[in-house]
């Protein structure tokens, strides 16, 4: 096996793992991670193709796929940053709109008194 084949198969495996994680991830953030895994798998397959092209002409690697991968990595990062910002915004909106009539946990009822003071430094019970 050449290194192009080794990393090409590795990339193929990453696409499979990423696909699985993107469908069945435990949380939105994890699905985002899985999506990135999938992307880097595709890039690795492309890298394997670049390496094969380079060997033919006696260089290390074909520069055209390399350039495309660099462009892709930067765009993938920008997309991830946007997705993360959306997740954080979503979490904030969720908190604001948390239904005030949520099921009161009767066991937790005494904690009502401490909750408003949570922001003030005088909430004394040290851990």
């Amino acid at each position, binding site marked *: 096996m050449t290194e192009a084949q080794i990393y090409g198969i590795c990339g193929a495996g990453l696409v499979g793992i990423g696909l699985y994680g993107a469908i069945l991830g435990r949380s939105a953030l994890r699905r985002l991670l899985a999506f990135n895994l999938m992307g880097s798998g595709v890039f690795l397959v492309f890298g394997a193709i670049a390496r094969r092209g380079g060997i033919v002409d006696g260089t290390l690697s074909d520069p055209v796929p390399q350039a495309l991968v660099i462009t892709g990595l930067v765009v993938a990062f920008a997309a991830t940053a946007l997705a993360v910002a959306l997740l954080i915004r979503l979490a904030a909106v969720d908190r604001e709109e948390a239904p005030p009539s949520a099921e009161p946990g009767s066991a937790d009822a005494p*904690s*009502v*008194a401490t909750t408003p003071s949570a922001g003030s430094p005088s*909430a004394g*019970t040290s851990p």
Partner: protein
Amino acid sequence: MDLADGFTAIFVSLGAFFFFAGWVGLVRFPDSLSRLHALSKADNLGLGLVIIGLMPQASWPFGMLKLVALWLLGVLIGGATAQMLAGAIHLDDGREPPGGNGDFARRTSEAGRNNEPGAAH
């Protein structure tokens, strides 16, 4: 045999040994802080010795300059992050009952503590 090559062989081997030692420590040591100690050995001695060993092979002046810069970076970053991680471990310890330091145990212990202020009230 070249003197420079012998120098390189000795120091690079020593560096590789310290990476190995750091790995053994990271995996085998019983608690977090001693594992951090093992990591610092690999960070400082392992990388440092490899860099010293590679000095005779490097091009003058920029190759050598980069190696020196790398070593300085390694020492600075390794030291600072070890300090930060040790702080994080202490913070972790401060709110965690001894023995239960697994992910699951921590979550359950947090969930347990969640009610504490209320209960004390």
